[in-house]
């Protein structure tokens, strides 16, 4: 990939991680809401004799011009007109609907309601989830799922903290024009800027989200970004080398082919290769810390 630029690699496992980053807050309310939502899978639709509520399905017969037409309304959505639906609330099956401006006269033929059962061990077992045969096991399953979701987000932040620490404590050779990876990144970015049309500096300021959009500040930021990416890729390359792994431009080409995308030029492939090493480093960090997260239940 790039020239060897690390003189001494600092062990990422020495990073000081803020305790909060390893804390996975799981909302019990969110878990209970998901548990109740899962029970909806087993809901039944039953005729009821009491007054119509929002969410009920009401079948009406309306008489217009000597003809009777039947309509079915999901009460509360407003699709049949708010005035009619408001008027239906509280009326029972068999009730007459007086003619008013918003409706022909008619009667309520039937009222049906969605009946959501409470989650039981039997229903939890019917969800078909491996190892889940009770409500408590399902609750634990949902908590784990939620914790994993939170962990995915925290892992990104954790990788960044660790990467910054390793960049700070490792010893690098200077990264600049004489580095092949740096040159390719810089050249590839300039080609992208030109392809965008307009001012290179303005495009660069947008691309790097710079507040100082003066020409020299933009180019300085690009040089710093290219050097940073080369250093980050070098971290992954060093760990991959320790593991006897290496990435080539062929790996990048395969990714493009698998995605059905047109492959980039040589500079783009080199950047793609660097990205593979950056991802490798992040994966090593994520794997190392995956068992160090702990779940905290909050109301």
């Amino acid at each position, binding site marked *: 990939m790039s020239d060897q630029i690390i003189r001494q690699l600092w062990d990422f496992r020495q990073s000081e991680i803020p305790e909060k980053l390893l804390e996975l807050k799981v909302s019990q309310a969110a878990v209970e809401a998901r548990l109740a939502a899962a029970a909806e899978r087993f809901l*039944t*639709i*039953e005729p009821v004799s009491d007054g119509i509520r929002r969410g009920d*399905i009401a*079948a009406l017969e309306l008489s217009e011009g000597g003809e009777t037409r039947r309509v079915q*309304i*999901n009460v509360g959505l407003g*699709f049949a007109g708010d005035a009619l639906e408001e008027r239906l609330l509280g009326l029972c099956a068999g009730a007459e609907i007086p003619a008013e401006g918003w409706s022909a006269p008619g009667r309520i033929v039937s009222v049906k309601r*969605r009946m959501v059962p409470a989650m039981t061990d039997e229903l939890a077992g019917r969800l078909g989830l491996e190892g889940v045969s009770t409500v408590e096991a399902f609750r634990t399953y949902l908590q784990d799922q939620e914790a994993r979701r939170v962990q995915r987000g925290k892992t990104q932040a954790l990788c960044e903290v660790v990467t910054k620490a390793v960049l700070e404590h490792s010893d690098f050779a200077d990264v600049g024009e004489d580095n092949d990876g740096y040159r390719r990144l810089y050249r590839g970015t300039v080609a992208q800027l030109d392809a965008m049309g307009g001012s290179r500096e303005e495009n660069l300021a947008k691309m790097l989200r710079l507040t100082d959009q003066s020409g020299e500040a933009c180019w300085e930021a690009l040089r710093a970004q290219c050097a940073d990416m080369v250093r980050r890729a070098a971290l992954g390359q060093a760990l991959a080398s320790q593991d006897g792994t290496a990435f080539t431009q062929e790996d990048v080409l395969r990714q493009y082919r698998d995605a059905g995308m047109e492959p980039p030029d040589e500079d783009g492939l080199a950047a793609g290769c660097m990205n593979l090493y950056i991802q490798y480093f992040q994966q090593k960090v994520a794997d190392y810390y995956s068992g160090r997260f702990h779940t905290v239940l909050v109301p």
Partner: protein
Amino acid sequence: MDRHYTYTPEGVCASEICFDIVDGILHNVKFTGGCRGNTQGVALLAEGMRAEDVVKRLKGVDCHGGFSCPDQLAKAITACLAESRA
């Protein structure tokens, strides 16, 4: 027969589709996952329609690789109606 139905679609971004059919009319269509706006739009347009008419309209809609969320809704309704007749 009135029933609530849950279907696991294939080849699309949505991971689950559920709905009610009451006396042959479709209600409360809900997609889990998928393009939020598009699936909500499909669900609202299908509300209160005859289930068989929804199948006629949405069957064969393609998003990618011959699959789409609307087409999967059509398949789900077809499966539900077939099970109800059995």
